[in-house]
Structures are given as structure tokens and as C-alpha cells.
């Protein structure tokens, strides 16, 4: 399958608002895609639907040709913007957990990444600072050989050194067989990693394309373009 994710006219309505209003997006294999937009634009909603923890109201979304379900959950590695591990766990429990439930989990890689991130495998999850927790969640997610990585604000709330490490880890993890979707506000730090970008506003994609081509066309950095689009 050349296209790992295809969303057509995707809609998600709540009682009082429409989070996604006809979102169209295609993600090809082996690409790193940035989904950019202000708070409330629908980024997180879209990611949650891709991860299978939120249901759509209308439209279609296919991951590797399948509707979100048990199969897609086995090939999608999701990094939410929440602290979602069990409070009683130590890092090694979390590692074992991922190992037990995901066939594509690489324990060796995980141990190496934990070292790289300076995380002690015996620490309790609840004692980790926000930055360390973010590093842990990312480590667990990247240690899977998933077809699609969905990272919701991986750089949020972390100091610059940690940010560096996270970007390095993401880059290092790149493979032609998998794709990565990243949402972020910190466009400037991460735009050199993007193949393609999609700007989301009010539940729709208002601009999308190849990052390099957009730079060429507009003579702007993606960060500057972001400010243009959302001023």
C-alpha cells in the first residue's frame, strides 16, 4: 500500500460544535508529515480518530486500506498529549507492557533509546517530570516498528535539550516503510524534518503540499507561512 492514511471528507461533530468539517488528507509511505494549526483547529481530534480512540461522525478514513479497528491499532503507534500510563508502573513495567501487547515492539531498541534519553528503567512513572515523561512515551512509541506513527505535540512543554533529543530520536527512527504524522506549534524547530505539511483550520485542511516546494513557491519558511495562514 503506497498510501498509508487516507481521510476523505472526515467529519466529527459534538453537541455544540463541529471539530472536523470535511477534512481531506493523504499520507504516503515513508513520509514525515506535519499537521499544523492553532488550538481547536481539529488536529488532536483528527489524530485521535486515526489512532482509533475517537469515532468519526461522517466521511471516511482508511489506514493501510482498513477502517480504524483492531488491525489498525496494531500498525499505528500513537503518542497522545496525555499522561496515560498506569500510575503504579515503573518504566520497566511499561516496557514489558508494550512488549506483551505489541508484536512489533523492539525491546533492544527501547533499552538503547532509554539510555539515550537518560531514563532509569527503575524509576516510577509518576515521579517523572513532564519532560522525562514525554521522553518515555516517545521512546515506547518509537520502539515499535509501526507503519504509521502519530505524534501529538511531541515537543510541547519540554526544554530545548530534550527537544533536541526528541528530534534526533524521531529522525533516527525514520524508515521508508513507515510514515510519521506530527502535530506541533513549534514549527521552527521541526520544519526541516517535514516532507509534507498540511495546515488545518476549523476542521479543514486549508493548505497542504511538499515543504520544499512551498518554500520555493512562497519564499517563506514553513514557520513564516504558518503565521501568514493563521494571522
Amino acid at each position, binding site marked *: 500500500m503506497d498510501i498509508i492514511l487516507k481521510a476523505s471528507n472526515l467529519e466529527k461533530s459534538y453537541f455544540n460544535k463541529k471539530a472536523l468539517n470535511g477534512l481531506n488528507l493523504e499520507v504516503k509511505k515513508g*513520509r514525515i508529515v506535519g499537521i499544523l494549526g492553532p488550538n481547536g483547529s481539529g488536529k488532536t481530534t483528527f489524530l485521535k480518530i486515526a489512532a482509533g480512540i475517537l469515532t468519526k461522525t461522517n466521511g471516511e478514513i482508511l489506514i493501510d486500506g482498513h477502517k480504524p479497528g483492531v488491525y489498525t491499532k496494531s500498525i499505528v503507534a500513537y503518542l497522545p498529549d496525555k499522561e496515560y500510563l498506569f500510575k503504579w508502573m515503573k518504566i520497566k513495567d511499561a516496557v514489558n507492557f508494550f512488549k506483551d501487547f505489541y508484536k512489533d515492539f523492539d525491546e533492544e531498541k527501547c533499552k538503547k533509546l532509554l539510555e539515550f534519553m537518560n531514563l532509569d528503567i527503575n524509576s516510577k512513572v509518576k515521579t517523572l517530570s513532564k519532560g522525562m515523561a514525554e521522553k518515555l512515551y516517545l521512546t515506547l512509541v518509537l520502539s515499535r516498528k509501526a507503519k504509521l506513527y502519530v505524534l501529538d505535540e511531541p515537543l510541547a512543554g519540554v526544554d530545548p535539550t530534550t527537544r533536541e533529543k526528541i528530534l534526533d530520536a524521531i529522525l533516527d527512527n525514520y524508515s521508508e516503510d513507515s510514515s510519521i504524522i506530527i502535530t506541533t506549534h513549534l514549527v521552527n524547530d521541526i*520544519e526541516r524534518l517535514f516532507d509534507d505539511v498540511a495546515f488545518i483550520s476549523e476542521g479543514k485542511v486549508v493548505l497542504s503540499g511538499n515543504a520544499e516546494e512551498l518554500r520555493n513557491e512562497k519564499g517563506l*519558511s514553513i514557520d513564516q507561512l504558518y503565521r501568514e495562514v493563521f494571522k
Partner: protein
Amino acid sequence: MGISFDQKIPIYIQIMHLVKRDIVIQKLKPGDKLPSVRDMASELKVNPNTLQRAYQELEREGITYTQRGMGTFVREDIDMIGELKREMAKEITDSFVEGMMNLGFTEKEILTVIEDKVKEEI
């Protein structure tokens, strides 16, 4: 954070520039193997696809050639290297002269400035 790129300009073009420069200053000699896409991407902290594009363009421009399974190499073409040198020099001088003329310098003044500067360096 690797090398700082001007993110207003396509990054692959800037990477190509880096490679061309390395060839001109002989950091990369004719026949030398360029670092692999992955290694270079990791070092520069950019998307490997961007690197790939840069390498493809370099090949298209006849500066490098790829041998399947072996890698990408600098063409053993002295003329090409000479041409590169001229091209890069032209970029610098064009930009310089334009900039100076925009500031209001005359031909004679520009030449004087250059002479003085070169004497200084030597």
C-alpha cells in the same frame, strides 16, 4: 542542532550548495564517496528524503554519479569542478557588486575597495 539552514529557501538546494563547496575547496576530491543519505541526514538533522532529492539533483547536474549498491561519488571531471568554482565565485561577486551598487558605490570605488581588501588579506 546540526547546521543552521535558512528555512525560507528549499533545504535541498542549500545542501547541494554545501556539497558543491566541499568539492571546490577539495574537501571532497574527484572519485570520493559522499556520505550515505541516512548518515548525512542524521548529521545535518534533516529529512532523509530532502537529502535524497539533493543527491538526485547533484546527479542530474552532472556533479555526482551513483553506483548501485555502492553509493554516490564525485565525478572525476576536472572541467566540471572548475565550472563549479566559477559558478560559486560568480554567485559571490554578483551578490557583492549588486549590494555595493545599491549602496551607491561607483565602478571605480568598488574596484578600489576590492584591491584594498585583497591586499589586507595577503
